[in-house]
């Protein structure tokens, strides 16, 4: 939860950075109708995507959604069956991996075990045939950047996990690539270190201005770091938006369920008054009012998506006339310290999750099991999903 709040602060710093919404801006990377199949499996399915210079871009999805394949297509380790991959306007099809101006930080880090930290970082520079002093200078710069200056002579197996991660980062950045590809960069770190490293990555990206393309399955990581997130599923992009939009305005049931916790109440649009739709949900019993700018005609099947933290819980039955009040009984309580999650069982057996912040240290009479409660939400706290 903490990271989410901090994300808001960082987002504020970069508020004006939105090249994707500027008309006429040239993307740095363009996937153009790219398809990649492995036998009967289609890993990437006619996918098009543009990523802009200086962007911190996240590919987010469950394993098997094609996100790693997409990254490997850009690095040149896979060739597309259809479509084109363009970098700075140049089709990369004929360019082998070792000549592409992108560098990758591998999930396993792939540090060369028979070379020192220094040797690993210098490896790419040596391939360019740079003069010795220049290599020295750049390696030192990189070591300073990732705060490993004292460890230049160590071997990878003499480093901790966090240090290895930094060496991998330094090695990939040393060549000053146009794009840095990061494959699950934080997956191998433990939770505390992961959170600290997130912010470090963002600082480095900001100071160098390199375009970062991160592949991850961890939504908190993506939310915290990215300018934009592409949520992927089954080889396609399910939604492409900045993190807050992804969270607050998910485009489909898939995205809403993949990112964070959500309650999906299936129903049917019965009426519309301006932006306010009336939806009848069999699970709830009464009609719900939901704000929606999307055109939805009466009779359309939709889902009302409401995040647990956007509901307020009250004891007993709601006062008469309260809009969007869902009545049920407390089925389960999960105390998390900062939050408590209540599972509410509705009359027809549906389970609803509602989270309440524990603002007070002591509560006179906390809600308890099997107690009748009502959950209330504002019409603009929920989203109507037709897909």
């Amino acid at each position: 939860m903490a990271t989410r709040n901090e994300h808001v602060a960082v987002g504020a710093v970069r508020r004006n950075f939105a090249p994707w919404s500027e008309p006429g801006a040239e993307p740095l990377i363009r996937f153009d109708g790219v398809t990649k199949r492995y036998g009967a499996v289609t890993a990437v399915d006619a996918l098009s995507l543009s990523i802009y210079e200086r962007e911190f871009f996240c590919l987010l999805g469950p394993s098997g959604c094609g996100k790693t394949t997409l990254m490997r297509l850009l690095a040149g380790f896979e060739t597309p069956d259809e479509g084109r991959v363009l970098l700075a306007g140049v089709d990369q099809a004929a360019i082998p991996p070792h000549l592409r101006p992108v560098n990758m930080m591998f999930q396993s880090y792939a540090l060369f075990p028979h070379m020192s930290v220094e040797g690993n970082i210098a490896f790419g520079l040596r391939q360019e045939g740079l003069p010795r002093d220049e290599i020295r200078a750049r390696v030192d710069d990189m070591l300073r950047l990732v705060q490993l200056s004292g460890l230049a002579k160590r071997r990878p197996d003499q480093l901790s996990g966090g240090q290895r991660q930094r060496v991998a980062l330094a090695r990939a950045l040393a060549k000053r690539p146009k794009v840095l590809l990061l494959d699950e960069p934080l997956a191998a770190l433990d939770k505390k270190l992961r959170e600290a490293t997130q912010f470090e990555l963002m600082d480095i990206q900001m100071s160098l201005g390199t375009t970062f393309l991160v592949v991850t399955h961890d939504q908190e990581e993506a939310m915290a770091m990215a300018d934009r997130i592409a949520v992927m599923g089954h080889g396609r992009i399910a939604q492409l938006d900045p993190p807050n939009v992804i969270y607050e305005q998910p485009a489909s049931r898939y995205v809403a369920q993949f990112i964070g916790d959500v309650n999906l109440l299936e129903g049917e649009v019965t009426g519309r008054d301006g932006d306010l739709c009336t939806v009848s949900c069999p699970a709830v019993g009464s009609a719900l009012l939901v704000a929606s700018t999307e055109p939805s005609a009466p009779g359309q099947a939709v889902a009302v998506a409401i995040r647990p933290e956007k509901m307020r819980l009250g004891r007993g039955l709601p006062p008469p006339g309260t809009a969007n009040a869902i009545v049920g009984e407390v089925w389960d309580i999960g105390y998390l310290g900062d939050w408590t999650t209540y599972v509410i069982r509705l009359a027809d057996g549906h389970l609803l999750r509602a989270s309440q912040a524990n603002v007070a240290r002591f509560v006179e009479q906390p809600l308890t099991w099997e107690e009748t409660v009502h959950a209330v939400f504002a019409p603009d706290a929920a989203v109507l999903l037709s897909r």
Partner: protein
Amino acid sequence: MHRGNAFRTVVLLLGLGFLYLPIVVLVIYSFNASRLVTVWGGFSIQWYVALFANAPLMEAAWTSLKIATLSASLATVLGTLAALALVRHGRFGGRSLFTGLIYAPLVMPEVIVGLALLLLFVSVGADRGLWTVVVAHTTLTLCFATVIIQARLASFDRALEEAAMDLGCPPAKTFFTITLPLIAPAVGAAFLLAFTLSLDDLVIASFTTGPGATTLPMRIYSQVRLGVTPEINAACTVLIAFVAVGLGLSFILTRSGARHRDEAAGEASADAVAERHAEVRS
């Protein structure tokens, strides 16, 4: 628990005793002044003197060393290529035939391999001698080399090669700067095994050799058939010492490497703990 431990120790001691008894006996009697195995005639190195004066035996040893060096080198190169083909190039046409050709010689009785190769050499009219033995030994040992290197390659993280290419290293150069140094221990082991197998082989060499290329095992065999001789005991002891020194050296080398790594790992985990503390404080 205690009883289990004792039982295990006894089993292992008996087993190892069984394995080492004949070798120990051989070594001891090579220093026996008496010709008789049952009589200890005092310590003597006379059989070693006789051994080094035995010109045919020395010549055979030299031939064997030449054959072993040549065939082991060839087998290591071919075995590396074969292992790369099997591990790296997924499914290709004839893959199962290829795998069969690698595994069949491993279990095929040597008499058949020897006979088959001889028939080949005769039917193409090749002059038999040192080179035909080299070819025969390469054929057998390349399969052993393949299996050893294949095992190492299978556990090799391909991301390392991809990382090298990603950093601008062309594929062929990647093989020599990244892959080969990292599979070097397996390649070395493959060479050693091929070398030993070649040095040791009696049957295949007997079939495929020609005039002027008598190998050490062939010479030893023909003498042994006439009975136990202390001179052969001495020859065997020299061979055993040769192998023991080589293996001991490689063992010490790999051990010290491993210890170095262990210490490093300990240090690294200490660093990790320190790092975590730092994170928590900040």
